[in-house]
């Protein structure tokens, strides 16, 4: 039997068919010498230490720092991408450093970061790097966070859930046509991925970037909130994030803050317990309140925590448990 020269990448729903010397749509998985290789493995193009609130994760180890890495490429091509200089670039067009998994873990430990984030671009496309680094991090008492669009097939997602502790997943719009026309993807795999993460016990928070004239539709936001309630539950935090003109959408203005506030109100009215506004400084929409009695639990300004009144993860007034991962002791 003659062996084909065509490889089918089954990592994400794109299902790229790739031949020798060419890459998949993500630009980072390339057929080299008769095998498909993840060429950005161990070669991040961005390495930072961030506050975890920047991911944003508001219910996961608040007030801690997180070592954050990214490699070049992405399997989506959002016209509004806020990191397009690295996500829409080929690996050979970016400056990267040699940082194998053990060095990432060592760097996180040396700098007192209790967790590592795979973020900025799309961790799905540097899957093998995420998987091995996460596995090593776990063995060293660290936790793992993905900031992702969640555009991945079921089996790889299942495997990833075994080593990932928390995720902030983008829900770019509650519209398949938006995903097709603006992001070059589809909505359903993203929704399925979030349900799977929840089932597997990964702490999940959702970000919805609101873009003027594209997805600033309160009716759509209402439908999205209903879906979150029905499939992920009311305790899944929802972050409405402010758009800034970027990439192919520089002609649009930043999202009006009033609309972000309306979206948050819509989510709270729909029954979501924790709704936030992101990329806007100094509003009460950055704070966490007890959904039962309205007590201010965590006061934030930007990515800083001004006060955290939680007592062992409970509201100090009514004693109700506030869902989240609040301390970085041994993994439970």
């Amino acid at each position, binding site marked *: 039997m003659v062996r*084909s020269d*065509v*490889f*089918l*990448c*089954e*990592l994400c729903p794109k299902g790229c068919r790739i031949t020798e*010397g*060419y*890459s998949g749509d993500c*630009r980072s*998985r*390339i057929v*080299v*010498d008769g*095998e*498909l*290789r*993840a*060429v950005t*493995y*161990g*070669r991040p193009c*961005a*390495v*930072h*230490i*961030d506050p975890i609130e*920047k*991911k*944003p994760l508001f219910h996961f180890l608040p007030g801690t720092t997180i*070592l*954050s890495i990214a490699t070049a490429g992405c399997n989506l091509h*959002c016209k509004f991408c*806020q*990191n397009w200089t*690295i996500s829409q670039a*080929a*690996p*050979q067009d970016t400056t990267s*450093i*040699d*940082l194998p998994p053990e060095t*990432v873990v060592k*760097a996180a430990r040396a*700098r007192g970061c209790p967790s590592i984030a795979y*973020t*900025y671009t799309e961790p799905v496309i540097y*899957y*093998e790097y995420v*998987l091995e680094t996460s596995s090593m991090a776990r063995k060293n008492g660290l936790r793992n966070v993905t*900031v992702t669009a969640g555009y991945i097939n079921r089996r790889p997602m299942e495997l990833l859930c075994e080593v990932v502790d928390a995720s*902030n997943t983008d829900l770019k719009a509650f519209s398949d046509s938006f995903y097709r026309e603006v992001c070059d993807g589809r909505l359903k795999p993203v929704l399925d991925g979030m349900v799977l993460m929840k089932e597997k016990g990964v702490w999940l928070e959702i*970000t919805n*970037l609101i873009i003027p004239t594209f997805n600033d539709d309160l009716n759509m936001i209402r439908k999205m909130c209903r879906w979150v309630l029905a499939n992920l539950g009311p305790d899944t935090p929802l972050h409405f994030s402010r758009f*800034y003109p970027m990439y192919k959408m520089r002609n649009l203005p930043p999202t009006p803050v009033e609309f972000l506030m309306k979206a948050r109100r819509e989510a709270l009215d729909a029954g979501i317990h924790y709704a936030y506004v992101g990329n*806007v400084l100094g509003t009460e929409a950055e704070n966490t309140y007890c959904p039962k009695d309205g007590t201010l639990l965590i006061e934030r300004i*930007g*990515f*800083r925590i001004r006060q955290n009144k939680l007592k062992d993860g409970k509201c100090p007034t009514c004693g109700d448990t506030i869902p989240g991962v609040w301390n970085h002791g041994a993994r439970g």
Partner: protein
Amino acid sequence: MEREADHATRAHVRVESPDKTGRRDFLTGLVCVPLIFLYNRNGRETSSKLSGRRAMFVRRL
């Protein structure tokens, strides 16, 4: 999506090559730049010298 450099607060801190690989980067650059120039002239056709590691979830058709 999380922005790499945040414009609202600039709260991030850049880490300088955590494993001090600057010298290796320089040497890699010396080798890779000419290769990229030679092999990357046709859109997404890329240098066969990029290595990485074997990809998971792949099937040969």
